[in-house]
């Protein structure tokens, strides 16, 4: 047992040292943070506030999710908005709250680069989740993704979700009379 503590301690020191070495270089910091699941928030290349776009509080824009996630109702993939979709609005909307973040968006568009978003929601490769099937059944996006329209920083809805927690899927399937056959998702 004592040996394990020693190993753990050594590993901690190394990690700390590696972390300190990166402080100061902002880009490097972002990459380092992005690779640690705890800090998705600051790891995004652009501080994108979902609440500002999709929220229905005064001053928020109440946009439909599928304005940006354009293929959710016709594809297995919900779709990540192309940079041109962002620019479509932001070439005339400077972003009153965080103009510097909007400038970053325009910068990506100008350079013709994709925005390297950090993925928050991911289902394992051995499971298939057809978005359109769930939209067609009348589900709201929030039922799986949480109240995204209230989130300034997108986080996973529920630690139990975890991407691989099948019980979470199955509970919902059973409640709604959907199939609980394995091969519905695993093939």
């Amino acid at each position, binding site marked *: 047992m004592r040996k394990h503590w020693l190993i753990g301690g050594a590993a901690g020191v190394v990690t700390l040292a590696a972390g300190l070495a990166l402080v100061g270089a902002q880009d490097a910091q972002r990459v380092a943070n992005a690779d640690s699941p705890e800090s998705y928030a600051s790891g995004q290349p652009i501080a994108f506030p979902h609440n500002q776009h999709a929220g229905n509080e005064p001053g928020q824009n109440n946009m439909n999710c599928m304005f940006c996630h354009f*293929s959710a109702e016709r594809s297995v993939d919900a779709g990540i908005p*192309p*940079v*041109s979709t962002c620019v479509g609005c932001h070439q005339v909307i400077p972003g009153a709250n965080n103009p510097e973040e909007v400038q970053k968006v325009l910068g990506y568009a100008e350079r013709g680069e994709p925005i390297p*978003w950090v993925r928050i929601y991911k289902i*394992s*490769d*051995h499971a298939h989740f057809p978005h359109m099937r769930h939209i067609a059944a009348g589900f709201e996006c929030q039922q799986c993704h949480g109240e995204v329209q209230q989130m300034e920083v997108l986080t996973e809805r529920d630690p139990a979700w975890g991407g691989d927690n099948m019980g979470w899927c199955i509970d919902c399937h059973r409640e709604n009379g959907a199939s609980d056959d394995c091969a519905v998702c*695993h093939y």
Partner: protein
Amino acid sequence: MTDGIKRRDFLKVLGVTGAGAGLSGCSTEGAERLLPYVVPPEDITPGVATWYTTVCKGCSAGCGMWVRTREGRAVKIEGNPNHPVSQGGLCSRGHATLQHLYNPDRYTGPMVREGGNLRAVTWEDAETLLATRIQAAGGRVHLIHGQMGPALTSLVDEVMAAVGGSRTEYEALSDAPLREAARIAFGTDALPRYDIESARMLVSFGNDFLETGVNPVGYARAFARMSGSDDHGDKGRFVYAGPRLSLTGLNADEWLPIRPGSEAALALGMASALGGDAGPYGSVLSAFDVRSAAQATGISEDAIQELAERFADGPSLAMGPGVGAHHRNATAANVAVMILNSVAGNVGTTVTMGAGPSSSTRPYADMESAIGAMASGQVGVVMVRGTNPAYSLPSSPSGSGFQDALASVDFKVSFASAPDETSALADLILPDRHFLEAWGDSAPMPGVRTIQQPVMQPVPHFDSKEMGDVLLSLATRMGATMEAATFRDYVRTEYNGVLGNEEAWRTALKTGVVDVPASIPGTGALQSPDSALSFDAPVMDGGDDLTLVVHPSPRFGAGEFANSPWMLELPDPVAKIMWHSWLEMNPVTAEARGIREGDFVEVTSPHGSLEVPVWLYPGIREDTVALAMGNGHTDFGRWASDNGVNAMALLPAVAEQPSGSFVTVATTVSVTPTGDRRRLATNEGSSDQHDRPIAPAIALADLGHAEEEADDGHGALMELQGVGGFVPVDAHDGAATAFPLEGAQHGNYTNAHEGPRWGMAIDLDKCTGCSACITACQAENNIPWVGEDQVQMGRDLHWIRLERYYEHIDATQASHVDVRFLPMMCQHCGNAPCEPVCPVFATYHTPEGVNAQIYNRCVGTRYCANNCPYKVRVYNWYRYTDENVPEPMTWQWNPDVTVRTNGIMEKCSLCMQRIRDAENRAAVEGRQDRVPRDGEIVTACQQSCPAEAIVFGDLRNPETRVAQMVESERTYRVLDELINTQPGVHYLKKVTFHEVSGGAH
């Protein structure tokens, strides 16, 4: 289960040991990035397949293709059902063209050879260099090329005229003797079009139309319709005459094992027995009769006489020798077959003119002149495109001299997109694009054109450029004025006439077919021959007693597909051997020489010798041995190089007269054992059914009263009844009620009696054993290859195994052939032996009757595979998908199917992803019952099958096609009555003309 360990507890124990087994993609290290498009492409929706039509350039047939792309990558090819050539099917090689697209050995960019090494250069530099050298050569420019579409041909002619060059077309496989025979006999420059479907008596004189030649896929479809029996017992008869049963021959009802080269004697003997009017060939015919035919062929007079009589009954059709029978008198043999057709009154009915691309080349004879020109210094710059003569022409002292002649040219340019033996000799490499990345067109038959459009952006690993664009740039550099800026524009302009407006052009791209006006000369009446023809058997080189037949491989063609792991690991449809080469030899011949299967022999002809293992084959004459083309490359990529032998080493370089075709049946050989042995890399368990009714047949005469058959077909095995709990049950219930079985526990599936039961029916009277289904399945379901060593250990991963059982083959006299093909995949048993032995419920039954395999549950005990009576479950012993599949071949993975890693069992899923896709569509469209329509779900094997033998659908709905097929009296399920597995896959028995005795016969 009573006391002792319970299944769930066992699962827990296993859970610990099995924790290491997972699927690729389970990694949680690091954050994954989501990269959006900057500007979205118009026709791409993430997660939704986009389909493009184009044309296959894998061989000269020109089949129409539908290419499925996902997120901009080509992932699967299917046949275009609208296309008049292929009519919806696709062969194995067509599928494998995808592996050429993603071939990791492709050239990474233009290169110049300096001091023996290749140095990367820019396209600008490369093109400047080419222009400079051509200028310096002053018109002494020559292009040697393979098959090209009409647009590229016309551009090449334009550019060559501008620079003062010339060109030669050379393809290793050609139909020149047939084409020349059609010209001589009927005065047409088109190939004969055979209406196989209408014939009731088809005789092939060494024409392997199911595997090579004008249109393998389309002819296979027509053949299956002709020879597949319908419910009224109408079935056409197929007779094969030739020294060796090719895949085509194995589909015959009768075999005349004639001596190599005696096709003309047989055809003329039959024609003379018919006694019809042979027009200007009357005098030829008078020199032949049944007796002379019998002497030349080694077949009895009675058999020939009887065949002639049946042929006269019509509607009949005879097909002349193809590439596998190109001997020194192949043109005369084709003329002889045309005389036979003419005498029997088939011309104008089953034989018309107008198939195949029009062409006036004399392939090898033209090549000989090109070689002569190069050797004598008349060529300053030689360019090679789409052909590989340094491999496909013999390099022996009596060979073509191509390699030496090429080496003597000052500047050699290759447009090869991947290394080959010819580009290895080139000074400048200008890598062409793969046809799926490039523009072009194809003229597969008179009156039909197809536009070849790029289905994706060029694979970014390779800096390639279309040859058309290079030529346009070259012409501009050399001062010519070209109207088109790009080759795409050039192709578009070529079709200004027939596709005037933009809408017509778009429609043509969408349907994949353009109708163009065509006129076919030739009256259908026999014309006097304008060149000397010898109808005698050709003289073979050497004085040995074994004649060598060199034939194109159904997998590799003439070698173009030798670097595709799909093709290498596809069991040869005849020999069932993968990867390496083999020599086919009759068991009687082998025994006389003390040779066993797997023995290495030295095969020596007057022109060369090579060492190759022997495979014993009863379907070849005792005085003949055969080698397939395609292997034995020296410089063709990581998989092809140093694999097997190149049969061309044994051949002389001879041009057949008068067609100028390369002669493939030219020499005798001696065969001596070397003393070495090897284990053949085969997945064949046995070529004998051992009295088990795996692929039973029914005689045509018995159709309509099958129930009178006394023997239920299980032979000796039935005697085991009641021994050791082995109790067969009455399983005569229909397929619909057989699942779930009475009293069976199927988890919590209370609704399993409702909804569809997915199943399949395969008509074995149509199946030709071509194995296209195997490659289609491999492409669709992310099945990796395992390599030759693993194959020898029986670890190949194919989900379909094409069983080939010999029932009757006689290589000594004319008699019936009975070979049974059976595509064996997971039978989706209603009472599956694999299910109760799985400790973790990784295999189980879905409510829809599919035996499912859940990869993420599987811990790899392999109990299921051991308990499967059909041996269709395959196991990932290693990380084949990681280790065997290099970038960018991984781009071909189907994103709808899990990529499996080591420790996982897998098998046919009935294309579950396609079922789900159709269900999703039904749900999104808001259809009431959410059940896909019949025919909406097409499995990959079914789509590809050129013979239309496979039908998938809902067995429980009596309206579906599959349910109706299952009602046929020919329907059976493999081993079902014996072991009560209640399979969901049904087979329809092969129908034979001869009596079948016993169940297995």
